[in-house]
């Protein structure tokens, strides 16, 4: 549950460090713990994909 979503925080870190991770959390409105708890649903994955594209 939420493993795919959490992986986006790692991708964000690779892209721009902690600043990018904070921005990802703000756009998706989920911290990494919340992402872990959230289902890896297509809707959530889409939100994270779009957020990552904005970083």
């Amino acid at each position: 549950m939420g493993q795919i979503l959490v992986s986006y925080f790692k991708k964000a870190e690779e892209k721009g460090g902690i600043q990018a991770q904070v921005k990802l959390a703000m756009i998706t409105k989920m911290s990494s713990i919340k992402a872990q708890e959230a289902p890896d649903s297509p809707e959530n994955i889409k939100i994270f994909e779009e957020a990552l594209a904005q970083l």
Partner: protein
Amino acid sequence: MVKWYQSLQTRLTISFLLLISAIALGTFFYTVNEGKKAITEQMREELMLTANVMASQLDGDILASLHEGDEFKDEYWQIDDLLEKMRGDNEQIIYTYTMRINTDDSVAFVVDTDNEETYADIQKNLDEAVLIDMVYEDAPVDEIKEGLKGPYATEEPYTDEWGTFMTGYAPILDSESNAVAVLGVDFDISTVKEKQDFLSSRIYIIIAGAISAATLIILYFSSTIIKDLNKITKVAQEVSKGNPNVTIPEIKTKSEIYELNEGMKSVLAAVEFLTENVQSKSAPGGK
């Protein structure tokens, strides 16, 4: 805690209430005023029409021939009876009387239906009888002169020694179509006042109902808005107390409050992430 008089709900409700009251009062006074004018104008039209129709039935030659002391003549009573009969058909008519304008611009009565029914009655009650060529004291000469030219009615109700009326005037023509006298028809203005009061009371009820309905609607909408705002305010207050683990409310309406709530979610997500990050770094074996 926001005091009640500083709350948005109170301010919104009072502002809208004042606005609606101002509009409603403006509408009320304008409508009542225009309505009263319309009713008065309708009464004037009715008066002019009535006076004109009645005057057309009177014989100007007979009236012109009547002079002081002719109350005993059949011609006098012929005119009097006709006026009485026509007056009897209309409940609004209080007095009907014929007048002529003297060379010195004074107005004199000719036949007045307020007189007693026979010449004997007049003789018995001479002090109160209105006799031929008796001068009409304080007569509205200009209006009577207008009535000599054609049908005319007083602009507004007026009060004289006999009461408060609106009067219609119309010329009485002789066989050569010369205006030899003026017929005056007094309408009881209580009917006008009744119509005006009825209009005012109805509009007052409608406006009062509209203000009440508008107040309820404003209260409902402002309480809905304030309810959502209060939810977000509570979250902000919890965060300001150092407690970021709060549940963000769900705002369904896509309004500015929804945007504010979404912004709050973003900020809290960032705070949570940073908190987690600091905690994981400070934990034993953290990066």
